[in-house]
């Protein structure tokens, strides 16, 4: 089903010595508690910023034909497939927003 696909896991994003910017931001903003969902949150966050950059629209994009904004609403909507049972969402959003260069 995924013949020929490339798969990037959390190990492929950064190392303990050289963290990916999103990993760094999760540490800084305490974007986790138990850590169970964290690899998925970080992989999704990287993809979310890339998808916004590519101009892919989301459910909250007001103008479908315009480039989507790098806003908190966009990030929230696009991250909704990643569930955090500890409820670290607000810190996760802070971490992603910082890397995106937006205001929190």
């Amino acid at each position: 089903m995924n013949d020929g696909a490339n798969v990037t896991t959390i190990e492929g994003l950064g190392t303990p010595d050289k963290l990916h910017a999103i990993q760094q931001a999760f540490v800084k903003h305490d974007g986790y508690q138990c850590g169970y969902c964290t690899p998925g949150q970080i992989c999704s966050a990287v993809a979310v910023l890339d998808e916004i950059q590519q101009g892919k629209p989301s459910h909250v994009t007001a103008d479908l034909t315009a480039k989507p904004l790098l806003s908190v609403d966009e990030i929230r909507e696009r991250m909704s497939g990643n569930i955090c049972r500890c409820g670290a969402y607000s810190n996760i959003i802070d971490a992603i927003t910082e890397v995106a260069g937006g205001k929190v």
Partner: protein
Amino acid sequence: MKAFTYQRVSTPAEAAQAAYRTPNARFIAGGTNLLDLMKLEIETPAHLIDVNGLKLDQIEPLPDGGLRVGALMRNTDLAADMRIRRDYAVLARALLAGASTQLRNRATTAGNLLQRTRCVYFYDTNMPCNKRKPGSGCSAIGGFTRQHAVVGSSDACIATHPSDMAVAMRVLDAEVETVKPDGAGRVIPIADFHRLPGSTPHIEHVLEPGELIVSVKLPKPTGGQHFYRKVRDRASYAFALVSVAAIIQPNGTGRVALGGVAHKPWRVEAAEQQMPQGAKAVADQLLAGARPTHDNEFKIPLVQRTLASVMAEAKKGA
């Protein structure tokens, strides 16, 4: 999960033939619904035919101004295509309202049409379900039915079709193109594609054994303002309680289809004649003969209010 055999195919006709010849075979594309159902042993295919290599993942412009959308086009790619965003915004909006990004990245156009109900009793293999086990009874009737159908249901089944995309395709008058095991093609209007449950709720669509969806044809753009308003228990990543797909022209005429209320995308063309009279008139005719339960009778006024909200927004934007 039950053990199964697996094959890849290289042409639609080969896929259809393999599915026709092999007992208890299923096509697999994105797998976002079928794999879950297999893990729960709600679906127990003996053989999977992987259609991902069929190269049906493009959009082709048609001479009449419409578009042919490949069956394997991923929901994300379809919603991101500028032609869809510009000329078929109701479809882009519906796609983006469904599931999560991860699921949309894998889920395909044809798979979305063929996804199965999210009725909790269908998912609970300890409970009778006419859809899962024909003749065993319906546990939803008399059960917890907040999510269930209010119109077009039967004494055998009150499940809903979960798709958002299909509701938009219904309002666009899309057509489903298929290939049969003998290699012949067929075009099925979306209105005729999904079935009402009647006494055979396990038969959900009109595809014949082995018949494979290869594309969906969108007629030339209708213009007008496009809306897909989805009402759900969470703001994201949740199935619709009620959804309204609408295309409204500057003179107030238009088209409306509903999700979350029936076993198929729900549209009553005659009701659209009532649009100049307002949302109540349209909703009354759309839901004429509705048989809600105590748990889901709220959907009747909710349809009317959601439609009223869409029509008010259209008036503002006209």
